[in-house]
């Protein structure tokens, strides 16, 4: 399963993947590229990844989420050059009830931000180009792995 893609994200496609006649609630999240970062005007940005681990970690997140709630999860993260407003991440979660769909969807985006090795480099209107660190904790461990 490819969770990373260098083509535009299509939420409708993700929703179609998880929708089913017995799943009446679909919660979704789309994270888009903002035009500002800490007061500076962003022109465009580039996402890069440790691809092998990012794919593995996304798969773990989906599996853990589907084990914790009775839902189906679709997840995609875009890589490469993105323009302002482009979707960087898209998540669709379908369940029989909206409680679990919302909870699971929220869980997925939190875990993606916390665990998936993806970085972004922003190009600003003032000409600077900088790596942006959202600042994950240094003591992260992947559940279920050897210490």
């Amino acid at each position, binding site marked *: 399963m490819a969770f990373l893609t260098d083509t535009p994200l299509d939420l409708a496609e993700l929703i179609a993947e998880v929708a089913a006649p017995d799943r009446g609630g679909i919660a979704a999240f789309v*994270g888009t590229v903002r035009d500002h970062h800490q007061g500076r005007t962003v022109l465009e940005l580039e*996402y*890069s*990844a*440790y691809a*092998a*681990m*990012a794919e*593995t*970690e996304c798969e773990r997140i989906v599996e853990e989420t589907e084990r914790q709630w009775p839902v189906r999860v679709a997840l995609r*993260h875009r890589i490469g050059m993105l323009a302002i407003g482009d979707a*960087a*991440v898209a998540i669709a979660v379908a369940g029989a009830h909206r409680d679990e769909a919302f909870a699971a969807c929220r869980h997925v*985006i939190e875990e*993606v*931000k*916390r*665990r*998936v*090795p*993806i*970085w*972004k*480099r922003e190009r600003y209107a003032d000409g600077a180009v900088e*790596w*942006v*660190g*959202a*600042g*994950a*904790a*240094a*003591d*992260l*461990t*992947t559940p279920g*792995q*050897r*210490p």
Partner: protein
Amino acid sequence: MVTTASTTVHILLFASYAERLGLERIDAALRPGATVADALAYLRALPGGSELPARPLCARNLAHVRADAPLADGDELAVLPPLAGG
């Protein structure tokens, strides 16, 4: 005790860390029983290595690990700058 055996670890660097050290991949021959912290000490001795933070995020064989995690011969160790996905 003297031993000639060593633990070769394939170290990967990404994003800002790769830029600071000027490399994306290096193989390190560490003493048997070495931990992630030992591999980080190896990196810090390289040019630009002093710019690594005290406790960078690390992954061993595609899974997050702590600095005290042991390394085995052939392990892949990735040193990860602060994540910015999502």
